[in-house]
């Protein structure tokens, strides 16, 4: 009896949360400042790092693997609520070359289309908005207001990522120096 009630409560709370999230983007943005969120992220990142250590011994690819693991863990922390996080999770390194090709084609199109679009907004802002759209994953074709929404969440998430990775590297470096084991030659 008690268990089924609890399940019902949890289900209804989750439904509530989902409904709230669909309506408001703001609460999800402030969650990146929560200590609990950062700790969860740090643990997930640590787990991912151990997998990286097992899989990729060579130097340059290990850094890239670390960055990808960190970004993927960050995207998962967003729980599918934002476009940038979904874009990170659905893309891999394969998308890099496709993105470069798209960029070349898009800049050609933009130059021909920008001259005729001087009606409402100055081209300078449009140009900068495009640059921003390229920086935030998966947000190239987004409308301006949506882009700004995604940007604010993305920036908050990145700040948390930097805090978590800094803290983790502090811990690792202090443990490393204290362990007394000499680094492998």
């Amino acid at each position, binding site marked *: 009896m008690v268990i089924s009630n609890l399940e019902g409560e949890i289900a209804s709370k989750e439904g509530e949360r989902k409904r709230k999230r669909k309506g408001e983007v703001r609460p999800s943005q402030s969650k990146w400042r929560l200590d609990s969120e950062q700790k969860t992220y740090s643990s997930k990142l640590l787990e991912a790092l151990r997998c990286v*250590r097992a899989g990729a011994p060579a130097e340059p690819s290990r850094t890239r693997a*670390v960055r990808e693991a960190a970004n993927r863990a960050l995207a998962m922390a967003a729980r599918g609520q934002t476009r940038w996080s979904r874009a990170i999770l659905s893309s891999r390194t394969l998308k890099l070359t496709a993105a470069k090709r798209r960029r070349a084609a898009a800049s050609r199109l933009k130059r021909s289309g920008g001259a005729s*679009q001087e009606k409402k907004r100055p081209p300078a802002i449009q140009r*900068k908005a495009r640059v921003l759209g390229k920086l935030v994953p998966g947000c190239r074709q987004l409308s*301006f207001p949506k882009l700004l929404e995604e*940007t604010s969440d993305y920036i908050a998430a990145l700040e948390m990522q*930097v805090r978590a990775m800094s803290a983790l590297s502090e811990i690792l470096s202090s443990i490393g120096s204290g362990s007394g084991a000499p*680094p492998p030659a």
Partner: protein
Amino acid sequence: MSSSRRNRITDEEINDLISKLQSLLPESRRRNTSRASASKLLKETCSYIKSLHREVDDLSDRLSELMATMDNNSPQAEIIRSLLRS
């Protein structure tokens, strides 16, 4: 239909979004400028994101190096986990 609607976003909506964007940037919090131009804010936002990306790159590099020392002791992982939990 939707594309023409996109071009006709009111200036008011844009200003509203821009002020929200301004609150995100660290410098604007300190300087407390009430009306920085949209263009300048967009530029600052782009450079801020780029600098965050660079920080993540540097940290990835550092973590990658530090991971080599993790190899030898697996009890370290336990210590780290408990530190993270506290």
